[in-house]
């Protein structure tokens, strides 16, 4: 009589490709082994409790409001060409020309005068062309004065010319 000692058995659970354990291997119980005597059960109990805790946890249901600013009373933004919402305030309020208060009306964090640096950069960038235009016999003196102003600004930035 032929003796059946096992060997490769295709129907065995470990050969079922659909039988995959989360801890690796096929057809395994998923229990950890290899810890010191008495610790395997403790570790596996902790794993089971952890899995149960995770299974009972529910993802937060999305509950974002339809409008993130709901409840905040904000005026609707208009376009550049809409009529002013501050009809009593001149358009030049806050600048040093035209009607209305000048730059002294601005808050201090808006008072940082960057125009000197800005003018120096403009002088460097455009001065060659502007100076050439100023040489034209049709160039008005008012334009030449402006070019002179930029020349002085450029010299402030770069004293060596």
């Amino acid at each position, binding site marked *: 009589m032929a003796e059946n000692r096992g060997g490769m058995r295709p129907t065995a659970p470990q050969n079922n490709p659909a039988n995959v354990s989360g801890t690796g291997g096929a057809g395994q119980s998923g229990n950890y082994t290899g810890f010191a005597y008495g610790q395997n059960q403790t570790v596996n109990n902790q794993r089971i409790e952890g899995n149960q805790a995770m299974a009972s946890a529910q993802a937060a249901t999305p509950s974002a409001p339809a409008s993130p600013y709901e409840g905040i009373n904000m005026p609707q933004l208009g376009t550049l060409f809409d009529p002013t919402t501050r009809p009593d305030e001149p358009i030049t309020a806050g600048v*040093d020309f035209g*009607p209305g208060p000048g730059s002294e009306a601005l808050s201090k964090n808006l008072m940082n005068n960057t*125009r000197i640096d800005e003018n120096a950069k*403009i002088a460097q960038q455009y001065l060659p062309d502007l*100076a050439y235009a*100023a*040489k034209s*016999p049709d160039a008005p003196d008012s334009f*030449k004065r*402006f070019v002179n102003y930029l020349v002085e600004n450029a010299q402030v930035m770069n004293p060596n010319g």
Partner: protein
Amino acid sequence: MVDAAWAPGSLFDNIDKFANSLGYQNAGIVMELSMMSWKSTDDRDAFITSVTGQDPQGGTEKNYIKRNY
């Protein structure tokens, strides 16, 4: 013959008008506004008047250049 670069509404004409109307210290704004495409010099001058409350300045004197560039 008039230099085309100085025709009314040209870039240099715009620079002259804006610089003398808004102030030399506002050179940044002057250059930005001068490079805008204005429909006409009337539109540009109306803008200057609305901003400054005065007629556009500059562009009336045509004398010699006072400085060697």
